[in-house]
């Protein structure tokens, strides 16, 4: 990559944090109009690399490099003041958390205009015109430029697009996108990638940081794979994907393949064989006519579902379709305005919590971000001892200790982790711990709300495998709520497609994904396919 002028040139970059080497000897180049993907599991150092290249290293970080140039300008040792002149004009940055990156109190139009106001001499009038054009280019209402709407009034996908508009409006030579689609459903993710692609075609160098090699496949020209702070493999996307050399790359490729994109055969064999009895089997959990509205919004208009023991019901839909509200009503955390939930033919919701408490152990939940569900004062030991003993055990000794070990081993965790705080575990370990806790009461129903969305592709693969095994071993019924069609397709026997709070399609998984009938389902499936395949041009 060295040789000619690039949007970004990095050579021999090393970063230490508090004296500990985190990134060693990384070299990376992005040419104008090129899309390079920096791929690796979390903790591999990819975010640290990118932040160092943007001058955003945390205090305590030591950055050294043989060459570090943005748009041919040496940025080593630049003062914060000089950096500000580089960012926005020469580099645009799109972070993962669009929710947090936009000021909730400032009009979005002003946020987008910032780069122009700071780095150009355009008049206010010209700026408004430029903002309108940019908003239109990313598929947002141009009126946002002036109507004073704030980020709080926009959906997650709209915010992500506004952020892209803000990053690209200054026509930077380099655009860095850190996990730009991870939190988005396939439809919005596709649009986001198309917008990044559009910027690339205007000559911007694009650096996409992600853990999802599947996403990279169709979009990136070149891939650099990071592992343990080093670049272990680099090359044209196609050749890296076809013949991965390094074990870390092989693991990522495997993960991307084993959750097949829509269109290839799903793991339907086992399921179709048993799908006949599922219709006769009595549902352990059933909901009829669920409705729930918040002031001004009908979150759930009409959802009915049933799931039998040992079966997995997938609930899919775009962000904001009401999936999570359905899950919360099933769990009794949210009271339905109308409709009922029954657990094993007994009333479950709506009921006062008091009347559910004795049966709480029969239903359990796993959520997207398990980190927040652990009391920070409790170690792993106490979390499981508490769950296994019905709240009576604090310390796991004797028989309870053996059960804690068994619970950890059941989810492939090392019993040696017992003394650790959940905060110090990796994302995958935390989610396994959350699953172990959920299964501790031997529930009949497990409600999983986006259980793998926040995890690395390789870890997703392992956790989905774990859930499959647990379903077969324990016969627990699962309600699997997700916008990630790949994950749902792998696990679900039956699928419910939710759109604007109502069920629009319902049937066996292979039928719904193979021959989607409702336009919403078709759109979701097509978006997932196109996201995996890359730009249509």
């Amino acid at each position, binding site marked *: 990559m060295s040789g000619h002028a690039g949007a970004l040139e990095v050579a021999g970059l090393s970063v230490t*944090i508090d004296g500990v080497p985190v990134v060693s000897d990384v070299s990376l180049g992005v040419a104008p109009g090129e899309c390079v993907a920096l791929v690796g599991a979390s903790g591999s150092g990819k975010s640290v690399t990118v932040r160092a290249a943007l001058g955003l290293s945390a205090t305590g970080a030591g950055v050294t490099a043989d060459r570090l140039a943005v748009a041919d300008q040496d940025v080593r040792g630049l003062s914060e003041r000089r950096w500000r002149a580089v960012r926005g004009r020469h580099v645009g940055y799109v972070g993962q958390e669009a929710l947090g990156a936009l000021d909730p109190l400032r009009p979005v139009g002003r946020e987008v205009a910032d780069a122009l106001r700071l780095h150009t001499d355009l008049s206010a009038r010209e700026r408004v015109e430029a903002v309108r054009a940019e908003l239109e280019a990313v598929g947002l209402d141009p009126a946002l430029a002036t109507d004073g709407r704030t980020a709080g009034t926009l959906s997650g996908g709209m915010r992500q697009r506004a952020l892209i508009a803000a990053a690209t409006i200054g026509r930077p030579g380099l655009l860095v996108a850190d996990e730009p689609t991870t939190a988005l459903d396939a439809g919005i993710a596709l649009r986001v990638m198309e917008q990044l692609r559009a910027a690339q075609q205007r000559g911007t160098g694009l650096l996409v940081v992600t853990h999802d090699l599947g996403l990279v496949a169709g979009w990136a020209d070149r891939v650099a794979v990071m592992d343990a702070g080093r670049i272990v493999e680099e090359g044209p996307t196609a050749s890296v994907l076809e013949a991965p050399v390094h074990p870390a790359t092989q693991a990522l490729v495997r993960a991307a393949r084993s959750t097949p994109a829509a269109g290839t055969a799903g793991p339907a064999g086992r399921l179709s064989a048993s799908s006949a009895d599922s219709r006769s089997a009595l549902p352990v959990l059933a909901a009829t006519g669920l409705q729930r509205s918040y002031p001004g919004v009908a979150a759930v208009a009409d959802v009915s579902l049933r799931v039998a023991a040992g079966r997995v019901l997938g609930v899919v839909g775009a962000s904001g379709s009401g999936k999570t509200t359905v899950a919360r009503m099933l769990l009794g955390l949210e009271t339905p305005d109308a409709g009922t939930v029954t657990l094993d033919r007994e009333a479950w919701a709506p009921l006062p919590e008091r009347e559910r*408490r004795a049966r*709480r152990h029969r239903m359990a939940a796993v959520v997207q*971000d398990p980190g927040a569900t652990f009391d920070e004062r409790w170690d792993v030991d106490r979390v499981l001892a508490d769950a296994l003993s019905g709240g009576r055990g604090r310390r796991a000794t004797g028989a309870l200790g053996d059960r804690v070990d068994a619970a950890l081993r059941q989810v492939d965790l090392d019993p040696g982790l017992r003394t650790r705080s959940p905060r110090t575990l990796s994302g995958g370990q935390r989610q396994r711990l959350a699953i172990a806790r959920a299964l501790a009461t031997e529930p009949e129903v497990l409600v999983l709300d986006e259980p793998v969305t926040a995890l690395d592709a390789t870890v997703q693969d392992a956790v989905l495998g774990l859930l499959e095994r647990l379903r077969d071993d324990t016969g627990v019924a699962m309600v699997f709520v997700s916008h990630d069609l790949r994950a749902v397709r792998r696990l679900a026997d039956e699928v419910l497609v939710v759109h604007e709070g109502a069920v629009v399609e319902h049937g066996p998984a292979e039928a719904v994904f193979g021959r989607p009938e409702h336009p919403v389902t078709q759109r979701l499936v097509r978006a997932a396919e196109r996201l995996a395949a890359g730009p249509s041009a």
Partner: protein
Amino acid sequence: MSGIVDPGLPAGRSSIAGVPGSTPSPEPGVRAGRRSERFRGGTLGPAGTVAAVVVAVAVVAALWPALLGGADPLAVHPSEALLPPGAGHLFGTDESGRDVLARVVAGTRASLLVGVVATLVGGGTGVVLGVLAGLGGRVVDAVVGRVTEVAFALPLLLVALVVIAVTGPGPVPAMLAVGFATAPGYARIVRGLVRTARSSQVVETAVLLGRSPATVVVRHVLPAALWPVVAVGTLGIGQAVVWASALSYLGVGTPPPAPEWGAMLADGRTYLATAPWMSTFPGLAIVVLATAVTVLGRALRRAGAAR
């Protein structure tokens, strides 16, 4: 923990306090583990160490005044009245010939005691009010909220004087007065923490596991609310020392002739031009002790947070 303001003073009056430093959270993954190891047994830092030494000396003075003060703080020697600081009397003598050093040392006990007890009273009352408001229904929350807001709007000293007006002057009423006057600050912090903890996913998870409301409150809500209050309370002690001295200065705290810094300041007022040492040394003592306790509290909190 960042963003908590010292409760000892109404907003905008905080003299020693800034906003507690919010350290940037470490990058996930790689850094977290190593970081916690590095900071295990975190130190107090230079300022914290000096403050710890000062507080230790004060504690010794409170427990065993004779060790530092030597002379009898109450012994009157009219012939030696108003002697400037010198060999015989390091801090000089007052209008009755009493040794100022001995009186400053002897006054430490009263000041420390009133600081600690008043903070306990204030923190305790605040926790009760805050938990009530945080856990109670809308009506309880509104009533407690309005009462604390009204108390907040009044200057702290005024609230303390109102309490004294009811109880009458004396050292114990001074403790209660300062305690009750600082309570609204703690109440507000506790209410916020309880509310946050109550709607947290930790509590939701406990509900999903079938825990009763009482169990959830005892295991998850109260611990989450109490530890930050203890941390803030250590900062509050320094402020309470200052306020208790202020009450004594006004003559409604510890009565004469018992040695008390605020009362000594008041006594020296008349002789400020001729015998400034009478007021200077107790004044310095107040400033040094209050500062040391506050700096130490902050350092302890940082060391605890790093762990």
